[in-house]
C-alpha cells in the first residue's frame, strides 16, 4: 500500500526524491495519516521560498474533527506548493501519494533521507500503532 519509491517519517509524511539531478523532493502525507485524520478541510502550508527544517514543523492540516501539525521530512527551500489543495483539500484523502502532494523542496542534505524509513519499515511501524 505504501509506495516503495519514497521514504517515510514517524509523523506519517513521505518524501519522494525526484529524478536524478533535480535535487528536489515531493512531500505529502501517507494513506494511514489521511485515514486517521478523516475528511481534510484545510491546509496551512509554507509559501514558495520559505525554508523548512528536517523533521521540523512546516504547516498544519485540519480535518472536520481535529487539527494536526505537519513536519517536513527534509530541510531545504520550498520551490512549489500544491495550489490545488487550497480549493480541493479532499485530494489529500483521495490520493495522498499522488495528486494530494503538498510541496516541492530543494534539499540541502540528501543524507537526511537515509535517516527516514523505507516502505517496509514504515509499514511495520504503522502496523504497530
Amino acid at each position: 500500500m505504501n509506495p516503495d519509491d519514497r521514504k517515510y517519517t514517524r509523523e506519517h509524511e513521505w518524501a519522494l526524491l525526484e529524478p536524478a539531478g533535480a535535487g528536489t523532493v515531493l512531500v505529502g502525507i501517507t494513506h494511514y495519516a489521511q485515514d486517521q485524520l478523516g475528511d481534510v478541510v484545510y491546509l496551512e502550508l509554507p509559501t514558495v521560498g520559505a525554508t523548512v527544517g528536517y523533521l521540523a514543523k512546516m504547516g498544519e492540516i485540519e480535518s472536520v474533527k481535529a487539527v494536526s501539525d505537519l513536519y517536513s521530512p527534509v530541510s531545504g527551500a520550498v520551490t512549489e506548493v500544491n495550489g490545488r489543495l487550497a480549493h480541493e483539500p479532499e485530494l489529500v484523502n483521495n490520493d495522498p501519494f499522488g495528486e494530494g502532494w503538498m510541496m516541492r523542496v530543494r534539499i540541502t542534505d540528501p543524507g537526511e533521507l537515509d535517516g527516514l524509513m523505507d516502505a517496509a519499515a514504515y509499514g511495520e511501524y504503522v502496523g504497530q500503532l
Partner: protein
Amino acid sequence: MSTDTNSDNLRTALYQTHVDLGARMVPFGGWDMPVQYRGVISEVAAVRADAGIFDVSHMGRLHIGGPNAAGLLDILLTGSASSLRAGRARYCFVCNERGGVIDDTIFYRLADDEFLLIPNAGNRAAVALWFDRQLAHHFDGRGVRITDRTMLTGLIALQGPAAAGVVDRLCEDFAPGARLPRNPGRTPVPSLLRPFAWGRGHIDGRRVFIGRTGYTGEDGFELAMGSSDIAPVWQKLYEAGATPCGLGARDVLRLEAGLPLHGHELTDTITPIEAGQDRFVRRDGGYNGADVLDHQRVYGARRRLVGLTLPGRSAPRAGYDVLADGEAVGVVSSGTYSPTLERCIAMAFVDTAHTAPGTTLTVDIRGRLAEASIVELPFYQRSG
C-alpha cells in the same frame, strides 16, 4: 491523532457490525465507539438530505420506577416529571445545588409510576450514584426503584428527513404510548408521533421502543431494544437505505443545530442559564439548584453561550481564547468546520457585555487572530 481503543472499554452489541462496516473505532465515555465509517462529511450530508443511523447504545438506560418516582425526579431534574403525560418525553438537566450541570438528559414517561432516563455515556455512573444518594434524603429513601438496564439493551438513532418513511415501512404492530392526535380510523404508524412522544412496535419481529427524539437538528427517532435484537434491527435499517454514521458526524450535526454537549457547553460548573438553555428549566422551582438558576434568570449571568461564525475553513477548537479589543472575554467550548453551511462555526462562553448578535469578536486560532461574528443559535434549522 486519536488514541487506540482499549481492552478495558465497554463494547456495544453492534461492535462487530461497526468493524465489519469498516468503521474506525475510538474510545469515548468508557466505550469503544465508531467515530466514522466512510467519512464525516458524507455522513453529515446523509443525515441532512436522507437518513442516517447511529449506534448510541453507549448512552445509559436508567429506569426510575415506583410511587415516589415522579416526586424524586421533580427534585432532581430541571424539567417537571409529574406534569409530563405518559407517552411523552422531555429534555432537561440534572443539576447540583450550585446549579451546575451533572448531566443533560431526555426522560420518557412510560407509565404513571415508571420513567426511562437517558444519561450520557460518561455520566451514567455519576447520575445513578447521585440519584441513589438523593433518594436517601427524600421520601425516607422509599418508593423509588432505580434500575440500570444499559447493558441489557441497545439504542439506535435514526435521523434525517427520510427517517419517518424508513421507520413506517419497517415497523409492524405500532402502538403509541399516548393517544395520537387526528387519527380517526387509521392504523397508527410511528410518523404520527409528535416530537418527544414515543410508542412501541416490532421491527424484524423484534420488540422496539420508538421515541421521536434525537440530537442532530433533523426529524428522527431513537429506537431502544434488547441487546440481542439490535444487530438485526440495524441491518434492516441499513438495508432500507440509512447510512451508518459515527460520533464525528454526530458532533458536527449537533453543533450545527446549536445543541450543547456535556463536557463542553455543560459541566458541573456551568449552569443551564449560562448555556442559554433557559427553556428547559422550569420556573416554579423546587428542584436542586433552583435558587441559583432563578437568580441568574432574573439578574443575569456573568457569561453566556454564544454562536460564532467565521469565514474560511480553519476552525476554532475547544479551549481557544475569544477576544474583544485585544482582551480575553471568553473561551470556545466547541468548534468545527460546518460542511452544511460551508463555513466554520463555534460555540463560546463570553462575558455578557459582549454577547449581542452582530458583535464582531476575535478568536485566537493557535496564534492567528480570526474575526468571528456572533449569530443567533442554532446555526442550522431544518425547513418545514
